[in-house]
């Protein structure tokens, strides 16, 4: 079963050394990611799956997976790490199906099947005039909707995210969130939001989620 979930964004800024000298905003974000992953690991999973979207042609070298692996490494994770890469433009139904299959594999793994998910996803890159994609007034409401699902612990709600709008808003996390929705389904849980900010005009949500037992 899925024993815990952590969610982190995957900006290149989290790659080691890429900011030159340390940048305070990035350090705060990274610390939040490590805290969320700390909770994921504390739930005692036997296996870890990193779920991330991939741009066309990215596959296993997808930025989302690279950043996810790096964060796990930095958090001291010693478990074997599996990848689940989903094309970032996959239709919601495909994402949900992949998520359900992931949940089944977690069940099928039997006694050692305590699975932890690290879902790499971030929100709109169009949240301000200086944002990478310039300001789109629809960005904040879209991200607020995601945050409401996360905060309520009702991850199934992520299944309803509009893929067309998400693409227009440069949301890099939509497909991965919908895999998560498929994997967790209607299981209720409790979310801790470790970070929610947009220091560079891109929304970065960091959370951990534990199923209500």
């Amino acid at each position, binding site marked *: 079963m899925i024993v815990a979930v952590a969610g982190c964004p995957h900006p290149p800024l989290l790659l080691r050394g890429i*900011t030159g000298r340390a940048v305070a*905003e990035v350090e705060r974000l990274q610390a939040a990611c490590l805290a969320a992953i700390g909770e994921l690991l504390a739930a005692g999973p036997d296996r870890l799956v990193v779920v991330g979207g991939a741009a066309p042609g990215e596959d296993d070298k997808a930025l989302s997976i690279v950043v996810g692996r790096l964060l796990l490494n930095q958090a001291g994770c010693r478990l074997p790490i599996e990848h689940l890469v989903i094309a970032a433009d996959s239709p919601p139904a495909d994402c949900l199906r992949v998520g359900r299959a992931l949940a089944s594999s977690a069940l099928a793994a039997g006694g050692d099947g305590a699975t932890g998910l690290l879902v790499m996803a971030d929100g709109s890159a169009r949240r301000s005039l200086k*944002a990478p994609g310039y300001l789109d007034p629809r960005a904040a409401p879209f991200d607020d909707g995601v945050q409401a699902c996360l905060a309520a612990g009702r991850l199934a709600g992520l299944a309803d995210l509009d893929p067309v709008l998400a693409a227009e808003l440069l949301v890099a996390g939509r497909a991965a969130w919908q895999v998560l929705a498929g994997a967790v389904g209607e299981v209720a849980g409790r979310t801790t939001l470790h970070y929610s900010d947009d220091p560079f005009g891109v929304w970065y949500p960091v959370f951990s989620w534990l199923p209500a037992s």
Partner: protein
Amino acid sequence: MLELAGRSFDSDALLIMAIVNRTPDSFYDRGATYAFDKALERVAEVVAAGAEIVDIGGVKAAPGDEVDTAEEIRRTVDFVARVRAEHPDLIISVDTWRHEVGRAVCAAGADVLNDAWGGYDPRLAEVAAEFDAALVCTHAGGVQPRTRPHRIFYDDVLADVLSRTVDLAERAVELGVSRHKIMIDPGHDFGKNTWHSLELTRRLDEMVATGWPVLVSLSNKDFVGEALDLPLDQRLLGTLATTAICAWQGARVFRAHNVAETRQVLDMVAAIRGSRPPKRAVRGLA
């Protein structure tokens, strides 16, 4: 490797030697820091602006009022002692050609003797050896101190620069100066017209290739002024352009009046070269 005041600097380090004149008549500052307290304020300012070294001078380079050895000592020695006391980690250089002055300032705490007149007094290198001080070996074309170049010609200015500075450096090593404490300086405008200074700037990499750390003293000099036909107070941009060109070719120490601006140029060169990361790279990476 370059060793100054007990610290080691690798070839990526770009150091600023800030000019601090205890003179009433130097060409750029025109006596602004002649007074003891003004000079001391200047030291604090240049340290805050990012200079690793101060170069204290008691005699202007150009011809002018006679400054004898006693007067040069009066201007420099107590001041060096005070700077040493106030800035224990600062690298202190003194710009002098006289060995008597060299001995007195080393005893007062100087770390570097900047022999800007090309070994005119051969005993200055002996003093550097005696005090285990560093030494700048400069090309001045064999002229007398405090003279202007007049109808000086070279078959090949850089060949002359190389042979004289390397000979001075090797001689200093023979006298006992540590090999890691010697810098060579092409001596822009010293015994050279503007064409000469421009050529040796253009070919500075040949000097770097000797392996001796290269110091350049470019700041607001006449070759910059003549290259751009600009008066003294408008030579900063030309100086900084020259600084970047020299740094790119491998010069390691930069004697300068305008420390904050020079620091920015050197940091930028280091960032381009890849020896120093950007301070904050986030654009396009969010």
